[in-house]
């Protein structure tokens, strides 16, 4: 069964088409990533899906309810975590959760137990009576997420949820999302962090210039660009940034410095690996590490975005 069905969704601002007749479904219990460059239409799409904006054309069905025709029934079934934490700074964490619970019509006793449970799960119990204006960004994010989950929704919409979070909070949040998804919550995530989408999502949709360019599992998308395999190697001592001779090695199509490593794009990783040993011997270098890599989601994403920029169709 599909939790979300998007059909012919379109949004015009005057003559400008921000979202251009897009169609996709998200299955129940699926972790779906929605990717795209800045200004591609991600936020406009999620705003239409959650009832914040009215589509110029098309429909969004949430658990079978049309968000335009049955907004109350549809909205009861999802929670939203927007990019900016939208919490009441002058209220305590506890009062924020209680207010959210009241908006979803949860009884007083259920609100109390659910709020306590969520604050405990997010390690916020000891701060529950403090006004959230004194909270860190990570704590605010947790309160926002708790408010979105107060009514145990079937679907959770998250717009750039780890944006601005430190590494520890980001890892913790991802663990929470995985756990939620594991318990059956359908998750719709927009992000520009491709590694995040790669690590979390069952499928991703890529939107470019308002058009849906691809919808598939990350591994399947990567397979569509097999040409971009690579060898990642680190030398001791480090090879300077302008080592053009790495590009002269057999089968290397380009060499790119990434921190203390070099990423050598190739069609033939084994040939490159063999020639690298000759390279280090002739220069008195040592290899600290060497890995062969398949195409990343980032490679697939860039290939799709560039393909669309050249006027290609959807995959």
């Amino acid at each position: 069964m599909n939790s979300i069905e998007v059909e012919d969704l379109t949004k015009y601002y005057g003559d400008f088409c921000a979202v251009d007749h897009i169609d996709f479904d998200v299955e129940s219990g699926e972790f779906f990533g929605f990717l795209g460059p800045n200004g591609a239409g991600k936020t406009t799409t999620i705003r239409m899906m959650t009832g914040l904006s009215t589509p110029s054309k098309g429909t969004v069905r949430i658990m079978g309810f049309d968000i335009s025709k049955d907004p109350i029934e549809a909205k009861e079934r999802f929670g939203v975590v927007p990019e900016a934490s939208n919490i009441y700074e002058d209220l305590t964490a506890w009062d924020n959760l209680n207010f959210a619970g009241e908006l979803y019509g949860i009884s007083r006793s259920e609100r109390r137990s659910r709020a306590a449970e969520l604050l405990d799960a997010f390690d916020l119990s000891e701060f529950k009576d403090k006004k959230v204006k004194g909270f860190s960004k990570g704590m605010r994010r947790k309160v926002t997420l708790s408010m979105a989950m107060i009514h145990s929704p079937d679907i959770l919409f998250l717009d750039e949820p780890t944006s601005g979070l430190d590494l520890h909070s980001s890892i913790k949040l991802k663990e929470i999302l995985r756990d939620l998804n594991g318990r059956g919550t359908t998750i719709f995530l927009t992000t520009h962090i491709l590694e995040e989408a790669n690590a979390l999502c069952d499928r991703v949709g890529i939107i470019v210039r308002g058009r849906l360019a691809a919808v598939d599992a990350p591994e399947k998308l990567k397979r569509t660009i097999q040409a971009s395999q690579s060898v990642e190697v680190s030398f001791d001592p480090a090879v300077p940034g302008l080592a053009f001779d790495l590009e002269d090695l057999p089968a290397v199509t380009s060499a790119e410095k990434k921190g203390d490593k070099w990423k050598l794009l190739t069609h033939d990783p084994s040939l490159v690996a063999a020639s690298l040993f000759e390279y280090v011997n002739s220069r008195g270098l040592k290899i600290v590490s060497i890995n062969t890599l398949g195409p990343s989601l980032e490679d697939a994403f860039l290939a799709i975005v560039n393909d669309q920029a050249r006027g290609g169709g959807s995959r």
Partner: protein
Amino acid sequence: MTSPRRSSRVRRELSRAWAITKKDARIYYLRPGTIMFGLMFPLFLFISFAVGRDLSPQALIPGLVAITIFFSASSVGAMAVPTERRMKTHERMITAPISPLSILLGEIAGGAVYGAVMTAIPLIIGMIWYGFTIDHPIGLLASVALISFGFSAMGIMFSAMPTENPGDVMMILNFVRLPLLFVSGIFIPIEEMGRYGIITLISPLTYANDMIQYSVRGSSAFGPEIDALGIAAFTLLFLWVGVTLHERSRKTA
């Protein structure tokens, strides 16, 4: 829709709207802008009018009550909605399962309760210190409730302005509120305005002031029935325009 389902839906909407009213009371009633425009401003405005005039409390206080409701009830929504737009908490309410009308009703009730509470201040001071008396106490309570709701709806209508800055809404609101003070029979009685008295009919404050005058003194220019009808008509107009404008801004968002 069957009747039990409809009544359950109405109950659900009202209870969620009430949650918004309580939230507004906790957050906005003590904000400097609300206190300044809701209480201090009408008070000082009235003092500047009353000082040096030989008028009895019975003549002065009804006007002060009308001005206090007018400014206080219309200030809360005008302060709360743009602030919530800036903090993105307004979006939280839109994505929640509550109708746009109920969101606005919750906000309006927040302003109405504030207006009614603020009105009690000049009344209590008048009764304790100046021996001010009220002819129809129940009528006054009902009038304050009706008028507060109407003026709060007016503030909500202005809050539909597409801005995230409460100051922008307050500026436009004051641009309308201040001239209305002078054409509503508060500072110049309607009877003394001669043929210009007709312009008082287009001000909701006229009916509010007249209704309070009736409750306090037992007599007024129009009578309570016409006043109640006038205020109800303006309230519906503010509500309709407010809902339409708020919905339009959501459609173009």
